[in-house]
């Protein structure tokens, strides 16, 4: 009986901690939005963060996009040729990338590359009292440090997902048309006929924007909230990557349900 009570108590405490944590993170999110004005008034601060989060992630995004496209080309051709539909390879590659793989894989890579870097940077600034020093100089760290990094991530993410998808389609073309010999005209014309801008492209952009908000929020919050020790920063980085990955996959399911199944 005692064991059952202790287990229930532990579960209850975990649930309360979870709700507190989520509430605190939500208040933090609102505070970041409230102090976001400076990110746009002093644009160089945000552009600098777009460079660090976006431009420096470009190489890994383009290389990954190319490989994903190459694999999609191979797998897609193998499946489609069984049904005599190998000409539809362009449709399959482009829809897979624009609707799903582009936003999701780019989001996961973005969380690993840029999200972890943002958490580490803010966490180390906290550990070395730089945020506290800024606050003592009457400069709000939420406005000066956190908000530009948040918006840098939010702006970068859809652009990176678009680059990922474009590179993936190029990879699919390279394998399908150049290497295997699928008809070039059929590859592109079927893609143009089947891909709808609003239904496929725009929904993919919306997904990548939502993932950008989620990953950037998680990354800045974990950095700001971490224990100011080496171990604390390291744990915060791990949490950023794990929570971001889970958030992307869960949000993808929810968004897909609404966008493509008409729920």
């Amino acid at each position: 009986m005692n064991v059952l009570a202790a287990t229930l108590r532990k579960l209850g405490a975990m649930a309360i901690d979870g709700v507190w944590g989520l509430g605190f993170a939500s208040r933090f999110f609102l505070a970041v939005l409230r102090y976001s004005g400076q990110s746009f008034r002093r644009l160089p601060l945000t552009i600098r963060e777009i460079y660090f989060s976006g431009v420096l992630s470009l190489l890994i995004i383009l290389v990954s996009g190319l490989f994903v496209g190459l694999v999609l080309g191979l797998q897609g051709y193998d499946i489609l040729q069984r049904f005599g539909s190998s000409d539809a390879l362009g449709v399959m590659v482009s829809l897979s990338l624009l609707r799903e793989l582009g936003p999701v894989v780019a989001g996961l890579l973005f969380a690993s590359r840029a999200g972890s870097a943002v958490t580490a940077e803010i966490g180390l600034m906290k550990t070395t009292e730089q945020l506290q020093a800024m606050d003592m100089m009457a400069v709000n760290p939420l406005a000066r440090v956190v908000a530009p990094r948040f918006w840098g991530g939010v702006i970068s993410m859809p652009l990176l997902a678009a680059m990922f998808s474009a590179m993936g389609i190029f990879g699919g073309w390279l394998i399908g048309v150049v290497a295997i010999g699928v008809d070039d005209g059929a590859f592109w014309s079927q893609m143009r006929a089947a891909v709808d801008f609003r239904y496929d492209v725009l929904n993919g952009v919306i997904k990548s924007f939502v993932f950008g908000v989620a990953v950037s929020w998680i990354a800045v919050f974990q950095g700001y909230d971490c224990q100011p020790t080496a171990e604390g920063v390291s744990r915060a980085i791990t949490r950023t990557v794990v929570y971001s990955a889970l958030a992307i996959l869960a949000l993808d399911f929810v968004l897909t349900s609404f966008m493509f199944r008409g729920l």
Partner: protein
Amino acid sequence: MNLSVSNDPNAPLVRLEGVRFAYGEREILRGVDLTVHRGQVVAIMGGSGCGKTTLLRLIGGQLRAGSGKVEVDGQNLGRLSTDALYAMRRRMGMLFQFGALFTDMSVFDNVAFPLREHTDLPDELIRDLVLMKLHAVGLRGAQSLMPSELSGGMARRVALARAVALDPMLMLYDEPFAGLDPISLGITGQLIRRLNDALGAASIMVTHDVHVSLGLVDYVYFVSNGVIVAQGSPEEIRASVDPFVRQFVDAEADGPVPFHYPAPPLESLLDGVTA
């Protein structure tokens, strides 16, 4: 917004009355009274974990007192809005224990940071001001270095130049001498005194370094167990027969501040071995 509330030049710049503070259930300060006047350099001393840094953070408005009053220039910090607190902090400077320089900025940009954030001065004027501040701490030649290229003492001096960039009325120092070699320690001590006198400001420093501090400050407060246990001018402190002050000044291992952390008697743990 009225920034200078106190018109009486003899009124204390900082006044704490019956200040209590706790982290959750753990009470850190249990009724502290303290005053600091303009032109004074005041040291707050005490053993590790006695609440000195908490006191400094209360004066800087980073923490709010559980009860009692923390007044700076006549304004009760506990009642200030965030904007009013930031307006007050523009007139304060704080030197952190390890400098807390922004690691992505050069020495020049670190010192220029508060000027760029809080003034509309043209770049040429900011440059001249920064060079003057760096000259005052003897590091004009290090303006283009990054914080990672500085020694601990140099980083502390750059942080000092940054802290006085806006000519504050109140300077707060958190362990300014920790980890410094004797030369850097002497330089830092002299700078604290010189800058305070030049600015006509008040300075409060939390420190363990009794001998350097007694040669530098105007008044000393000793904190133990969350209360002020002794206070006085350096001469009074040197002549004091208070057991706590003597233990601290003479660096004795045991005394009112016990050598051992509270624990059950050793014999009770070694019964099986010693029997």
